[in-house]
């Protein structure tokens, strides 16, 4: 099982190290970790994607909550929510292929953010599956570089 778990933490020095250290010390399997400020500048939110059986995931939630700097822990498994990943990808793209790539990019609602003589950099945001599918379509062109932010999530409604 893979869950998206988010922790709202106090924006204090060392808090990222505490969370990262917790995962390595307890041997939790972390797939991605995204950190950033929230609506309240004294707090930040960490979103982790973590794998394991229910017993492990329960420990992850409890151990995160136990950190003194953690204010709230949410597991998005059972909550309706919006999930997003952002990716920047640079591919080989000689001028004669541009039109063809643009078509794919449009279908995925990506954006071209940089053009080189023989390269193209594209930004795509969305759910993981969509991004994975896009990456697969780009493979034949030759992927030069790729970077993803890791998942972030937010519950729907109130």
């Amino acid at each position, binding site marked *: 099982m893979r869950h998206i778990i988010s922790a709202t*933490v*106090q924006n204090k*020095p*060392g808090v990222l*190290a*505490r969370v990262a*250290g*917790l995962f390595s*010390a307890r041997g939790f399997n972390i797939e991605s970790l995204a950190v950033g400020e929230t609506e309240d500048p004294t707090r930040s939110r960490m979103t982790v994607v973590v794998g394991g059986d229910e*017993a492990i995931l*329960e*420990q992850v939630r*409890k*151990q995160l*909550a*136990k*950190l*003194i*700097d*953690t*204010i709230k822990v949410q597991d998005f498994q059972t909550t309706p929510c919006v999930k997003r990943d952002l990716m920047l990808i640079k591919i080989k793209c000689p001028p004669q292929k541009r039109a063809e790539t643009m078509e794919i990019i449009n279908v995925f609602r990506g954006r071209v953010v940089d053009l080189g003589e023989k390269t193209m950099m594209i930004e795509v945001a969305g759910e993981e599956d969509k991004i994975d599918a896009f990456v697969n379509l780009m493979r034949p062109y030759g992927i030069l570089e790729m970077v993803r932010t890791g998942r972030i999530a937010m519950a729907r409604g109130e």
Partner: protein
Amino acid sequence: MKGTKLFVESLLNENVDVVFGYPGGALIPLFDELVDCKKIRFILPRHEQGGAHAADGYARVTGKPGVVIATSGPGATNLVTGIANAYMDSIPMVAFTGQVKTNLIGNDAFQEVDLTGITRSICKHNYLVKNPEEMPEIIKEAFHLATTGRPGPVVIDLPVNVTTADIKAKIPKTVNLPGYKPNMEGNPKQVAKAAEMINEAERPVLYIGGGIISSGCCDQIKTLAEKGNLPVTPTMMGLGAFPDTHKLSLNMLGMHGTAYANYAVTHCDLLIAVGARFDDRVTGKIEEFAPDAKIIHIDIDPTSVSKNVPVDVPLVGDAGRILKQLIPQVKSQPRKAWLAQIDQWKKDFPLKYDEKGLKPQFVLETLYDQTKSKKTIICTEVGQHQMWSALFYKFTKPRTWVSSGGLGTMGFGLPASMGAQIGKPDHLVFNIAGDGSIQMNIQELATIKNNNLPVKIIILNNHYLGMVRQWQQLFFNGKYAHTDLCDNPDFVKISEAYGIPAMCVEKKEDVLAALKKAIAHKGPFLLDIRVDREENVFPMVPAGEAISRMIGGMA
């Protein structure tokens, strides 16, 4: 106010009356202030590790947080084992370390280490104070964190320029920790469910740990046990929480537990765990631990619940408060058949040993005999002598047993005994030591002598790293790889060199007189007792085996 002064004021505000500390460059200004404070007793150990264990021992016997201070760099790293030891056993402690000036942090400055990085995973929380104005608030928070919820050590790294700054901030009255609210009360529905299960159980066992002692609810455990006729087994950390001499006591369980405790747990239909955490030294092979039992688990730390075994009724909160809710709902029950079965196990498989020769168990039985009517505290090092102390000395009161459980730190006992003696000056304090362990912090004999602490040190000298030798004998074909200490130094001479009178005991007949002499002596005293070299601790559950499958001492 000057930082150093505010620091001392902050300690006084937390009712600190003793500090264990060792000086160094980063601490000179602070010590210059501390030395003038007459309300705080300052103890200079001879190694920072000793200071940390002393603070830990002090905390274990008093229930108050222990305080230790060490300088930056090597002073700070010398505290690491002591901090980890307190963390594993949930002991309240506040450790202060000096740090290089804030503008030098990260520069590999002289005596700089990233102490908050090093200690992050071995303490409840830690701080690097960068802004002097935050120091009073952080100290307040640290004491609060160390002593509430599941207690534990908190570390504060103090750069020199923070303590020497002029600080405007005052000591706050309250703490503001939005992420820290330990749950205290038990969920009433769960409590009712637990009571119902207890009332319906035919073969219940109450399994209690160090949490009972931290929570201060030993009387309630006794009430619960007596009301429900529940047999009680303490973990090593729980020794003293329920009298070993009580007819409902099964004594300690686990790897070196009694056979009757391990059988009772294996056959019970309900296990009520209170303030204990299902450590692997207790459970053995987890699949066969209490296989027929439903489990109720009362603990203040949610992460301890359902961590190692699935629990039927989790109750997260303070053990004392939950017992208060629970006891009125528990009906008294005779449980004749179950108690008769337990009595039979006690008769069939008592704790015993071969009495020929000078046996360590005999020393402990004699010591118990000689001290049972006195206020006594037993500290230990780690090894066979520790297990014999746990099994053959009878503990009847909380905070009278001081031993390193979770970390199993050789070298803990001697400094811990000095902290214990400082915390309880009216108690007779013993350190039961192994010949290996005593050498790990033997420098503390100087601190004991210097402060005239009347600690009695009893070395159960088998000229071996005995516990490891036992495993080698039983599981490694008797190949004693690096465990022979036959060329031990002369402990009597060492002790005398430190100015502490000492005696060597080689015959069983001399044990009683030697113990009497040590007890009667006004100051510290050391006994080097030459015990049977190859005696083993039995019963024993081989590592990873079910606790019902013990070896040794069973016939």
